[in-house]
């Protein structure tokens, strides 16, 4: 996530990260959702649709002719507009929401109503000849996991970025690292300090001990030393 714009294909692009430069000149990162997670979302939606169909049939069958009419119109709306209604409202159908993904425009803005309608009408073509075979092949041959509907509508399916509560690095007396550190090295230390508390003690110490040659410390002391360096990078002294 940290390095700047990369030229050509680098190791970063092995990741399914999609990077977009917004008009303000900064880069936004999106994590693209692949076929498997989208298929799961679809399955959840399919089950939900099935339930809605059942409820419609049971409730409206009681009403006779007009009930049947409403039922058929309901079928029509669910078949074609079920995803549209949810996507316009908050970018994701219940299935997508459950899987933690959402639909956006490929300029990072929320999906527009017309784009949502296009991508969902074109499901018909993506579905052919069976179970989204066309859509799957299309997703696999472009770099953004777009099915035909996404290509035509200019939409992307990405992971919803959870905003984590930010933890301050553990308090420690700042101390200057013994050697000059490059920027990447500083960032690695910072990341270690910020995420260290989420690791088990054993793993934390194991990681800190990788630097035993430089620090000459082991166990908890190695960890504390790294925290101290991280604090020095943050605050200076």
């Amino acid at each position, binding site marked *: 996530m940290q390095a700047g714009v990369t030229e050509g294909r680098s190791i970063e692009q092995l990741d399914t990260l999609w990077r977009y430069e917004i008009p*303000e000149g900064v880069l936004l990162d999106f994590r693209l959702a692949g076929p498997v997670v989208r298929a799961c979302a679809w399955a959840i939606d399919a089950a939900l649709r099935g339930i809605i169909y059942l409820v419609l049939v049971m409730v409206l069958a009681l009403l006779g002719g007009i009930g049947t*009419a409403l039922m058929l119109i309901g079928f029509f709306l669910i*078949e074609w507009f079920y995803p549209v209604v949810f996507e316009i409202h908050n970018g994701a159908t219940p299935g997508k929401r459950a899987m933690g993904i959402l639909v956006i425009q490929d300029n990072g803005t929320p999906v527009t109503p017309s784009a949502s309608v296009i991508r969902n009408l074109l499901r018909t073509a993506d579905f052919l000849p069976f179970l989204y075979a066309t859509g799957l092949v299309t997703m696999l041959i472009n770099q953004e996991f777009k099915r035909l509907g996404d290509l035509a509508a200019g939409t992307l399916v990405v992971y919803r970025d959870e905003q984590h509560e930010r933890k301050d690095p553990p308090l420690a007396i700042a101390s200057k690292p013994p050697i000059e550190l490059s920027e990447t090295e500083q960032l690695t230390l910072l990341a270690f300090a910020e995420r260290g508390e989420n690791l088990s003690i054993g793993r934390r110490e194991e990681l800190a001990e990788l630097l035993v040659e430089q620090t000459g410390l082991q166990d908890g002391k190695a960890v504390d030393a790294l925290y101290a360096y991280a604090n020095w990078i943050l605050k*200076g002294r």
Partner: protein
Amino acid sequence: MRQQQFEAENQTLWDEITQLMDDLQRSRSKRRLPHSQHLDFPDHYRQLCNHYALARSRGFSPALVDQLHGMVLRGHRLLYRQQGGWRWRVLYFILSGFPRAVRRNGGYFALSLLFFLLPALLMGVGCYLQEDLIYTVMDENMVAQMETNYDPTNERPGRSVERSSETDFTMFGYYILNNIGIGFRTFATGILLGVGTLFILLFNGLVIGGVAGHLSQLGYHETFWPFVSGHGAFELTAIVICGAAGLLLGHAVIAPGQRTRVQALREHAEESLQLVMGAALMLLAAAFIEAFWSSNTLQPSIKYFVASLLWLCVAFYLMLVGRGDHGSR
């Protein structure tokens, strides 16, 4: 500047922006901050972008960069979202946008019409002259069903005997489900190089022409033509328009011109969506007419009169309405 100093200096601004974004995410009536404060949002947001870029380039900690990234992302979505005004847009679309879109794409319309009308005419004449030609496109059961539907002894022409007791409402729902669905499929399968669209147009042309020719040859015209002539104005035209939309998609894939295929597809998709949505509204009107008007058993002369009015309406609407708006034809 060290990270901690940077954070201390800007934390107030970031809190303010977060509050502002929370407020902007609420629906209009539930907002708590005064409008004047909302007006500051673009400025604040650009400042935030600046901070994010700084944090990134100065190598501040990943957690801070992530936090600012999240805020910029949220701000970007809020600032550039489209919202509101859709009622007027729908009205304007019906009164001007749709007929203009159809005229803009007259060539596709003509091609679509050709692929529908030609097989229909050929099959119609063929079935009129040759009694059993209809069996090449429909199986025995379907033919028998169709024959009883339009048998002059059937009290409710256009519907099977079992269906005759169902109310007009039920049929309205059925026509919506079936016909608009066909329209959407005709459009969507156009992305497959236009092949799907052409196939559906051709097939529907053959069946509809075949049925018309076959029933006329049986001498059922007194029941068949008064029934179909009215809603046909909307239904057939709309299917041809859906076909035009599908061909528009197919064209982008086959011959994108000076653009990449994806670019061409996006532009054509936006254009074709207008055609499809308009056609869907026409199919809705057709379903209404078919369910509540076509099924009555008034004098054929009255029904033909109304039908010709409807055809005139459609022609007038598509050819003239919205002319001159934005200098369009």
